[in-house]
């Protein structure tokens, strides 16, 4: 018997209308766990680098995490993987909600889509009955609307629906896949779903998921619940409210937005508005939120309630989570009332709440600066809010300038030319980032931004405090019950970290410490993404209930795979390296691994180089960021090095010398500008 997983994938060839239930190899689970890990393995095996994102040969994989469907609290992530039309690298976006457990109860670990359907279709998975059905009546419908129609049509109120809106249908490069309370938004995976002609996947399952050692597993689950209760009663002192507790940042619950509105950038990630958060604003926003919010809501099997149902007068009800609350508001220099309204439309259209407002603010900046002209925006209203609605409509329909903007700031700037590139200033690897501009380089964040292949910092950072605590006493207090550290040395790193003086950023934590800290942070995210665990109860917050010490036990007693900390660390490293290998094969190199140039004012090119060198070395990558033959061998990834050798990415015998001796100079040159 298979434990925790079902042992079956659903393979759907949309070109031929073929549906197959395929048994998976348990050895793969041992090596790559599940979710992201096994998704990466499939993409490596079946999608060579020649395959374009919108080719029928690209795959779109919906992978439920290994432990989804078991009683482990907060374990509900669907990891959606494909080749992104925007970054042209591997995209893996996670969605919470209810879809992954339902898929497991239907008897599948993954849904793998290939080919392209000539007409718009939806998939209906009802336990073993799987059908491809006509969706022509859903063309142009909103994502939430679609879910409601389908549940009614099928008379299945308990079914879970993942759907795209108009943006996905029209292959907007930052289109999302929406699932009511949650969404998989980053990297334009909704565009790939639209390209494949799939409007929605509806799932209903009523089968069992087994665990290997029931009493032990339930004991672990109960411990996690107890710890969540403890953390709810003991928020971490000395950090801002959204970082003191568990869960995704509690944006729906917390009213105080002083920190975000005054520290994050407005418009096209340009303007910092110190003093914005006045008494008046505070009162007004609180009122707006309280009138809009009907209820705080959770994902499957989780008490944290990170989302909310939102009803704005004149707009249909929808569900929201996290930071979308502010992205439209700040992009348009408007207020919360506007932000919550336009987010309703954006959710139905299905666009990423980070990228979309930045693209729109970028377009308006180009207009202001004469790179685009009024003729490019026929009929556009004069007010900022009106302009945002106008642009959103143009983008999701790919009409006029919207057709260019639909490809994101990087590609749009290229197409527009005339200096537009300077306005697409907030990207990493062609992907829009959090609107944040800071002063002093932070070595930890430098490495995370540069090397993270999850593309969004909130899905890379976590565990280690974002900044040092002011006094030694506070730090000592913090490390006292810091059981989550993989090694005691991390406590010391933190204890010695000061706001000012010798032990402060950018030279402290030292290169070596920084590499270790980032490696730990990344490892936890990658483990979450294989198991299907929400980062909000694990890799993101400080002192989470899941960590490197209890995860191996969850895997052993849940999935029946013999596991310890060392083995788990190695497994995570294995598929993390595989993700990198996929991207290396698609051309990613050291030159791409850098934060937006203006992310920090004070840069340190030498230090930055040392950081990258050190991190690459720790990871077993050569100077160009390519995993070495030896490292690959150690991780049982010899098939990767064979492929690298064949393609001339690695040369036999020795690591390829870094092509980028020049990169040092280039960076150094920039600093003197």
């Amino acid at each position: 018997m298979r434990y925790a997983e079902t042992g079956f994938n659903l393979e759907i060839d949309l070109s031929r209308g073929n549906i197959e239930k395929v048994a998976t190899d348990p050895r793969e689970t041992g090596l790559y766990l599940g979710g992201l890990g096994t998704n990466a393995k499939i993409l490596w095996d079946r999608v060579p680098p020649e395959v374009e994102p919108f080719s029928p040969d690209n795959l779109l994989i919906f992978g439920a995490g290994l432990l989804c469907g078991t009683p482990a609290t907060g374990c509900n992530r669907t990891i959606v993987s494909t080749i992104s039309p925007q970054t042209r690298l591997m995209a893996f976006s996670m969605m919470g909600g209810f879809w992954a457990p339902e898929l497991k109860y239907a008897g599948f670990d993954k849904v793998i889509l290939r080919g392209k359907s000539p007409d718009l279709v939806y998939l209906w998975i009802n336990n073993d009955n799987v059908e491809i059905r006509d969706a022509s009546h859903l063309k142009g419908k909103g994502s939430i609307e679609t879910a409601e129609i389908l549940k009614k049509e099928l008379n299945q109120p308990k079914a879970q629906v993942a759907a795209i809106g108009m943006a996905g249908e029209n292959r907007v490069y930052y289109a999302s896949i929406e699932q009511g309370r949650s969404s998989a938004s980053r990297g334009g995976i909704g565009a790939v779903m639209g390209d494949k002609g799939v409007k929605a996947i509806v799932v209903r399952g009523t089968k069992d998921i087994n665990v290997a050692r029931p009493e032990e597993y339930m004991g672990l689950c109960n411990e996690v619940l107890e710890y969540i209760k403890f953390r709810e009663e003991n928020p971490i002192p000395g950090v801002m409210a959204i970082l003191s507790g568990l869960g995704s940042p509690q944006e729906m619950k917390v009213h105080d937005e002083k920190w975000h509105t005054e520290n994050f950038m407005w418009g096209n990630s340009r303007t910092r508005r110190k003093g914005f958060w006045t008494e008046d604003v505070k009162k007004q926003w609180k009122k707006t939120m309280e009138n809009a919010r009907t209820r705080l809501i959770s994902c499957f099997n989780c008490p944290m309630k990170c989302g909310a149902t939102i009803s704005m007068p004149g707009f249909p009800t929808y569900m929201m989570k996290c930071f979308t609350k502010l992205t439209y508001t700040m992009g348009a220099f408007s207020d919360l009332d506007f932000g919550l309204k336009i987010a309703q439309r954006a959710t139905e259209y299905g666009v990423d709440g980070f990228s979309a407002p930045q693209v729109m603010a970028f377009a308006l900046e180009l207009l202001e600066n004469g790179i685009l002209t009024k003729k490019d925006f026929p009929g556009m209203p004069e007010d900022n809010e009106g302009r945002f609605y106008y642009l959103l409509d143009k983008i999701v329909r790919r009409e006029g300038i919207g057709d260019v903007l639909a490809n994101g700031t990087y590609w749009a700037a290229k197409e527009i030319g005339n200096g537009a590139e300077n306005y697409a200033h907030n990207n990493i690897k062609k992907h829009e980032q959090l609107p944040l501009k800071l002063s002093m380089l932070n070595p930890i964040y430098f490495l995370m931004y540069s090397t993270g292949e999850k593309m969004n910092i909130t899905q890379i950072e976590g565990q280690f405090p974002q900044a040092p605590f002011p006094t030694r006493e506070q730090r000592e207090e913090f490390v006292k019950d810091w059981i989550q550290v993989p090694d005691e040395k991390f406590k010391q790193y933190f204890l010695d970290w000061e706001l000012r003086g010798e032990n402060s950023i950018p030279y402290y934590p030292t290169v070596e410490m920084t590499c270790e800290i980032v490696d730990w942070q990344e490892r936890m995210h990658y483990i979450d993404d294989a198991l299907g665990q929400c980062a909000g109860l694990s890799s993101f917050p400080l002192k989470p209930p899941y960590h490197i010490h209890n995860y191996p036990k969850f895997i052993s007693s849940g999935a029946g795979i013999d596991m310890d900390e060392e083995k788990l660390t190695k497994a995570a490293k294995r598929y993390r390296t595989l993700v990198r290998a996929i991207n290396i094969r698609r051309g990613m190199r050291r030159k791409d691994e850098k934060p937006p140039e203006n992310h920090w004012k004070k840069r340190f090119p030498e230090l930055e180089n040392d950081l990258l060198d050190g991190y690459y070395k720790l990871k077993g990558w050569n100077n160009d960021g390519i995993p070495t033959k030896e490292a690959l061998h150690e991780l049982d990834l010899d098939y990767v090095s064979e492929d690298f050798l064949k393609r001339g990415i690695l040369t036999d015998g020795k690591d390829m010398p870094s092509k980028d001796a020049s990169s040092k100079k280039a960076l150094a040159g920039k600093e003197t500008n």
Partner: protein
Amino acid sequence: MGDKKKKIIKTINIDVNQCNGCRACEVICSCFHAAPKYSSNNPARSRIRVVRDPLRDVYVPVYAGEYAVAECAGRDKYTIDGKEYDECSFCRASCPSRDEFKEPDSGLPLKCDMCEGEEEPLCVKWCLVDALTYKEREEEIEEDDEKEDREELEIGLESLASKYGLEKLMDSVARLSKKD
């Protein structure tokens, strides 16, 4: 009047306003009743169901009650605070009209047993947001149960008699008694 006897009344209080729709209650209930205990999980086997319709802000945790041989002649539909609830939303019966509270494979009816043998109902324990809370209270009841039963039976018979007529009722009783 007969002697007094003590009885423990177990009550689960349901506060629908606190419910966030997470279905943790369904998860733990189905685990607890798996054989062997906790060996599998399947909310479709749970004895509590969360009727959930987020866009209409409907959240109703319902406990499985008695098995009903036949469905009701009519249906009930509630509107509370302007929210319309689906047909039978609040009904606890395992009833032929719907899939709720039945084993998915066998179709056998399910019934909440208050997690026999546990200190407190597990769905309550796993609902950290207090949508479900548990109270026990002792109540003194009449010892003379038999008398009560008789009274109840008489009330029942009376209502049947008034509905079908005494003669028909007696015919039926006679027929039933011959069957055995």
